[in-house]
């Protein structure tokens, strides 16, 4: 195989060459990429030749077009959305599109983090330019190949629906027919990208590509992996955060049927058996003594009391415009409130699991993960192998919600497999999954506003007390974020420094997401953060801090509207003078909800707005209160501006999903800590929303031609304040905590 770089030093790095006379070698690479991805090529498999015009596209002589997707399918529809972007520019026949989840490669890193990770609703907007260009370059390559074969100028040819057509003669080649005709074709550097009005696929309600296999049981999730000679492990984790094993008696366990071994790993004690159920039963027979641990004094009620107290002192300013100090402590009118948001769990339907096979010189991993580079990195550390020797297969993921960004389950499977030299599948029981979750941080939010003579806030202070996810998580991400060329000793060294330094330096900036900047035109705003990390394992959770901050902001703003005796919509409208886009979104939601009309008897409305990344949203929630103060949410009207809509159905599904996910936290569940343990363990004590509690959700999008923005998490922060504000409208009671339970409104 010969290859030579054609163009270097530009934005893309293109390689072209020939492979044993079968065709073309072309690769679109991002800068600084060279680790795994060789220049792509035409290869042959079972008589089907394949053209890989770049890292993202595989065109086969059977006319199929496979799109490499560098993100995990968590249910958000990314394995449909990203292929739609490619197919649009490629002019592919949508019925011939197939999808493959990309392996761990430099070119497949998420540019938002420099690590292959599905997180923070970044998949579409980081892929938009790259995939459009990849599709367009492949299109132009195919057009050039066809033109050469016909001996006509490429300008007389165009691509359409999986074929290249010569306009004057109406001759055509299907893409598959062109695979072998591309040898030596130069890949164009500057390609035409379509204008939104030319889109044929983007903006259409294209059915998801993964639906059929999710209706007949054939979709393979991590938990479904089965390998020859594979054993299954159940890991018993310490009951108290950070606990260590003092002694273990596994005599009875080892006598039980199917048990192959009991091994100590970093996380706890692993019981390894032929089947999960044998391991699960035998794990109950373990007698483990755990070391005494300071964390056993941790108690979430006490933490809230401590944070209430801490909120009385000034925090570290993370954002400021104007000077709020001029307005507080004076004679002017002020309003204050404290909002308390509890810990939340992920409750992914598929519990944490991973299958690993550590062999003499290499290691393979099958995982439902959101973070492929981290899976590879932890395996490299445990095995001592180079990255090249560690292959990560991403399965379908039974719910992510941020939980699978950290990879404890991979560590466990690799450690056990390394010890036993067999393929090992680790499955957490639901109870282990709930109690060893990396939960969404709890916070206390002290809100204060100074009100001018028009009833509007002239100064706004939001003081957040709690722990910042990034303080705990960034040190874990560091080794995966470093470029691949960083040698192991340096990688470990820098990670070590990061682990001791970052938790002290990092907290703050991300903890105020959703708290500032505000969309409202308030002259003096300050967001403060008081960092108090008690050591409870916390992690990313669908929208993370935006959820708690938006709840405090949008409820508190509603309080100010009520203080001023004004309609919550009109009050916000007066404050959105500098945010026309948000104003339009809010008006759309209000119009569709009939905000200005009287709701049906017994129904009360609440409204909330939020900007998540660059997506503007407004929800109107309709609630009614029933006997024993039961709160029912009947209808939620969602208005969204997320730029160009790739697939309207995905936006609707993600809004419905955000409403359902958020309502569990709004009306049903919380994680509480007692004696250093998570008190909840399963869906009986951490109930999630049921179908009979699901409101009717209506979704309206604003047409916009700016590049697509975020959608997966964007709706989650909006639902809780919209419902809480509706509960206030219904009862006159301002509930400043979550979840809002019947007891909170019993005095109505």
């Amino acid at each position, binding site marked *: 195989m010969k290859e030579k770089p054609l163009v270097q030093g530009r934005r893309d790095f293109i390689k072209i060459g020939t492979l044993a006379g079968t065709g073309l070698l072309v690769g679109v690479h991002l800068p600084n990429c060279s680790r795994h991805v060789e220049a792509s090529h035409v290869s042959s498999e079972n008589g089907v030749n394949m053209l890989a015009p770049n890292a993202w596209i595989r065109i086969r002589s059977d006319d199929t077009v496979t799109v490499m997707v560098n993100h995990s399918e968590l*249910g958000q529809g990314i394995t449909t959305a990203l292929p739609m972007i490619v197919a649009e520019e490629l002019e592919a026949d949508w019925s011939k599109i197939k999808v493959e989840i990309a392996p761990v490669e430099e070119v497949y890193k998420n540019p938002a983090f420099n690590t292959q990770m599905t997180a923070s609703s970044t998949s579409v907007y980081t892929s938009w330019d790259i995939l459009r260009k990849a599709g367009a370059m492949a299109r132009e390559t195919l057009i050039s190949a066809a033109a050469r074969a016909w001996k006509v100028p490429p300008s007389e040819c165009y691509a359409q629906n999986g074929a290249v057509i010569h306009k004057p003669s109406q001759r055509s080649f299907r893409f598959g027919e062109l695979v072998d005709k591309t040898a030596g074709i130069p890949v164009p550097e500057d390609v035409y990208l379509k204008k939104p009005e030319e889109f044929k696929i983007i903006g259409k309600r294209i059915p998801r590509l993964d639906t059929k296999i999710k*209706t007949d049981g054939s*979709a393979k999730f991590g938990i479904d992996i089965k390998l020859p000679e594979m054993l299954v492990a159940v890991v018993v984790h310490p009951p108290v955060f950070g606990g260590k094993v003092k002694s273990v008696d596994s005599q009875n366990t080892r006598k039980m049927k199917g048990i192959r071994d009991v091994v100590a790993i970093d996380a706890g004690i692993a019981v390894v058996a032929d089947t999960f159920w044998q391991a699960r039963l035998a794990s109950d027979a373990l007698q483990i003594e755990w070391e005494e641990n300071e964390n056993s004094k941790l108690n979430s009620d006490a933490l809230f009391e401590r944070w209430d107290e801490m909120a009385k002192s000034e925090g570290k300013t993370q954002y400021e415009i104007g000077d709020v100090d001029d307005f507080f402590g004076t004679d002017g009118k002020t309003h204050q409130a404290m909002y308390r948001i509890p810990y939340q769990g992920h409750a992914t*339907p598929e519990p944490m699991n991973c299958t690993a096979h550590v062999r003499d010189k290499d290691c393979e991993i099958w995982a439902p993960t959101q973070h492929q580079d981290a899976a590879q990195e932890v395996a490299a550390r445990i095995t001592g192998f180079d990255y090249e020797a560690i292959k990560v297969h991403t399965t379908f993921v*039974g*719910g992510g919600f941020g939980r699978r960004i950290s990879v404890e389950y991979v560590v466990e499977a690799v450690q056990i497999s390394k010890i036993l030299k067999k393929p090992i599948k680790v499955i957490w029981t639901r109870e282990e999954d709930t109690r060893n979750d990396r939960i969404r941080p709890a916070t206390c939010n002290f809100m204060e506003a100074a009100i001018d003579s028009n009833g509007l806030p002239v100064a706004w202070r939001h003081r957040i007390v709690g722990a910042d996810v990034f303080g705990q998580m960034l040190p874990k991400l560091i080794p995966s974020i470093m470029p691949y060329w960083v040698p192991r000793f340096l990688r470990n060294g820098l990670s070590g420094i990061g682990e001791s330094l970052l938790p002290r330096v990092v907290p703050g900036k991300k903890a105020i997401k959703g708290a500032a900047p505000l969309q409202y035109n308030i002259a003096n705003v300050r967001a403060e953060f008081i960092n108090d990390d008690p050591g409870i394992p916390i992690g990313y959770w669908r929208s993370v801090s935006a959820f708690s901050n938006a709840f405090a902001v949008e409820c508190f703003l509603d309080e100010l509207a009520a203080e001023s005796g004004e309609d919550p919509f009109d009050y916000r409208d007066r404050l959105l003078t500098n945010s026309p886009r948000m104003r339009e979104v809010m008006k759309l939601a209000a119009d569709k909800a009939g905000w200005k009309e009287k709701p049906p008897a017994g129904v009360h409305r609440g409204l909330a707005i939020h900007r998540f990344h660059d997506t503007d949203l407004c929800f109107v929630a309709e609630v009614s209160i029933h006997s024993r103060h039961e709160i029912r949410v009947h209808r939620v009207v969602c208005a969204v501006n997320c730029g160009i809509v790739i697939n309207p159905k995905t936006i609707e599904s993600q809004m419905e999903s955000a409403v359902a996910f958020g309502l569990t936290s709004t009306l049903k569940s919380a994680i509480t800590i007692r004696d250093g343990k998570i008190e909840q363990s399963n869906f009986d004590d951490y109930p999630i929303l049921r179908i*009979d509690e*699901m409101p009717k959700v209506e979704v309206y999008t604003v047409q916009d031609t700016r590049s697509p923005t975020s959608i997966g998490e964007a709706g989650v922060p909006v639902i809780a304040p919209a419902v809480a504000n509706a509960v206030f409208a219904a009862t006159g009671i301002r509930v400043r905590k979550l979840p809002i339970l019947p007891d909170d409104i019993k005095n109505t």
Partner: protein
Amino acid sequence: MVKIRVNGINYQLDVDPDTPLLWVLTEQLGLTGTKYSCGISECGSCTVHIDGEAELSCGISLGEVAGKDVVTIEGLKGRIADALRQAWIEEDVPQCGYCQSGQIMTAATLLKHNSDPSDDAIDGAMSDVLCRCGSYQGIRQAIHLAAGRKVS
């Protein structure tokens, strides 16, 4: 040895009869479409049909289904099943998809007993099957769609 009939095939299994049916299906028979999620009969992901009725396979032992007819998502066939799958595809119901076997198995017995269920009837029958992604609105629509087609 326990005799069991799954998706029309007879098996003789040398498995502890106390083992939950869920783990027999997934680990012994390789029928992984039935999903473990809670293990305590709280979430419905593991719903299968036993003698034609929806049951939670995590809460019933192999011994208890000896001699009975078990159908999993892989073996779900017939007019109702076809109508449901088609409706599920048209309404693009699944998101992560993990609970959807349980949803479809439960919906199938609902339609068997009620050929034209109201929203309330759907909510009543389906409320034991949890979907963390919140695909509930699509489930309601898909069941209505399937009900209409199956009758016509």
